[in-house]
């Protein structure tokens, strides 16, 4: 709009408009991360895939109930009753969480591996830090930019299952002790926080997203491998060499170590945390009867401390690696 006279001066003018306070800065960076996440098709695919246990359970329950109702006589009903009786509802969430661990890893990699690594490579850090935006805002923004999409993804399937269960299986004791769900949400928050902190910490060490992602995946699978060994030892103590012959839970020489070391992996830690917070040792998956006793839950305080320590470690590594200044002699 011409201000004086008939021809407007469209050349450069200074900015003297409103400015938002500095506490808002991290959100600008976080929002960029969230937007980039939601735009990826792969993100939604992984979210859908992570729901697989819940979907299976919902299908099993639905069709079993339907089959029981249409089957002749009380036999069908009794079968269904027996089945439902074996199901501990809160454990279904534990299983859902447990079976989705690999997908959570994939999501964390997808969202976070490049988070800081890409900025390192493209030197975007210099632009960001040359604005009135300091390390704190940057790190908080990046962290939230990974955490929020990851949490959203972890939240949607259990939420859907919860609503389904609350509506359909109230008579079967679904809402007997509803406090398990808020506790479960805390598990999700902690789980997302651990993944986010670790992946952000590792991302800040590299300047290629691929390398950072490969490193995190490597650590994950290495510890996972260790845990699988433990699973084998546990099964072994229950069933194979030592168990059957001597009756009941066997006296495998590994037994006393197994339940302590079972949770020494990233997914193990998270599953352990889930068990500890929900207050359950777990029950057979899919409501199938099984002679194998589940691994008991680890102590709550210890697990919580380890999880928080990992979060702190990841964030500390990222903090120390974010620099605006490179020294070149």
């Amino acid at each position, binding site marked *: 709009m011409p201000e004086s006279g008939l021809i407007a001066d*469209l*050349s*450069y*003018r*200074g*900015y*003297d*408009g*409103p*400015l*938002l*306070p*500095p506490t*808002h*800065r991290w959100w*600008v*960076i976080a929002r*960029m991360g969230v937007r*980039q996440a939601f735009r990826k098709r792969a993100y939604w695919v992984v979210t859908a895939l992570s729901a697989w246990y819940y979907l299976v359970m919902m299908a099993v329950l639905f069709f079993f109930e339907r089959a029981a109702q249409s089957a002749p006589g009380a036999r069908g009903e009794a079968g269904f009753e027996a089945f439902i009786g074996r199901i501990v509802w809160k454990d279904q969430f534990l299983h859902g969480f447990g079976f989705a661990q690999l997908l959570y890893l994939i999501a964390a990699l997808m969202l976070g591996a490049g988070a800081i690594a*890409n*900025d390192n490579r*493209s*030197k*975007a*850090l*210099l*632009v*960001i*830090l*040359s*604005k*009135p*935006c*300091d390390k704190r805002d940057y790190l908080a923004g990046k962290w939230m930019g990974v955490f929020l999409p990851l949490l959203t993804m972890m939240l949607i399937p259990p939420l859907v299952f919860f609503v389904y269960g609350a509506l359909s299986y109230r008579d079967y004791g679904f809402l007997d002790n509803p406090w398990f769900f808020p506790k479960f949400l805390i598990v999700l928050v902690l789980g997302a926080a651990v993944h986010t902190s670790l992946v952000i910490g590792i991302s800040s060490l590299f300047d290629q997203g691929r390398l950072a992602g490969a490193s995190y995946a490597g650590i994950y699978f290495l510890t996972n491998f260790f845990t699988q060994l433990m699973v084998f030892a546990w099964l072994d103590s229950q069933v194979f060499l030592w168990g059957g012959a001597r009756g009941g839970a066997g006296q495998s020489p590994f037994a006393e170590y197994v339940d302590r070391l079972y949770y020494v992996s990233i997914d193990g830690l998270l599953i352990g945390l889930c068990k500890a917070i929900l207050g359950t040792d777990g029950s057979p998956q899919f409501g199938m009867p099984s002679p194998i006793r589940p691994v008991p839950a680890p102590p709550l305080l210890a697990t919580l401390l380890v999880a928080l320590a990992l979060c702190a470690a990841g964030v500390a590594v990222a903090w120390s690696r974010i620099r*605006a*200044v490179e*020294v070149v*002699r």
Partner: protein
Amino acid sequence: MVASLQNLTVRYGSFTALDSLSAEIPEGCVGLLGPNGAGKTTLIKTMLGFLTPAGGGGLVLGLDIRTQGREIRQKVGLMPEQDCHIPGLNAVQFVAFAGELAGMPSELALRRAHEVLEYCGLGEARYRNVETYSTGMKQRIKLAQALVHGPSLLLLDEPTNGLDPRGREEMLDLIRSVSHGKGVNVIVSSHLLPDVERVCDHVVVVSRGKVTEQGAIARLKVIEGRPIDIELKEESPEFVRALRDLGATVEATGLVLRVRLEGSAEQVSATIFRTARQTGAQVRGLAVAQRSLEGVFEEAVRA
């Protein structure tokens, strides 16, 4: 004064990058010169409040560099030397993001991004992905993101890097128009001295962590006694001899003569043309001799 620094000492471990450096940077357009490794980049980073000095201090735009780094960066725009962009974004998104990082609300940032990109000469290309840009366009985006929040001081680090001759001219014109037309203070750090001469009115020379020369370019280039440089069409020893006979000191290098002669500018010029006419020499160039900026730089660095 845009910035005044006193006894600034900055160390990286045991290496002293800035050694008790003091400088007064005036308003307008200032060139920051210095050999590689002299401490120019360190100085810029210290002025932005990234580095805490081990000793000394200073003010930039009236704000303390030790304690008010964030406020300084609110009012300063940096155009870095390296390429820096966020992959996956186009120019508008990138510049708007930069604006938001400076605290602008998002719609204002977007509008301003368009304005600034227009000013920097990026037309339709602003909707394309930044990775597809040519060097010239990338330089313009870097300038745009530095200008988006309306800073009072612009720091430009090698702004013509990689630009072809036309791009260089356009960039220099842009810088000149922002500094002389719009009242934004500019500090240009560059190795290309003619570019600096074209755009800046003052220079500060940094060498081995100290400021070894600073002042207005016009003043630094003055040579005592106002000698005159003459360029001839062909070498003419008679011309040289005739001038010497009149009491002038003449240094001849090929077709260029440096002449020192008593008298006012008009008198000297009249004498020269008269002598040329008499000896049959043809004068093709006549100017008050000045030190080249390169000469000033070399002396400052050798000191």
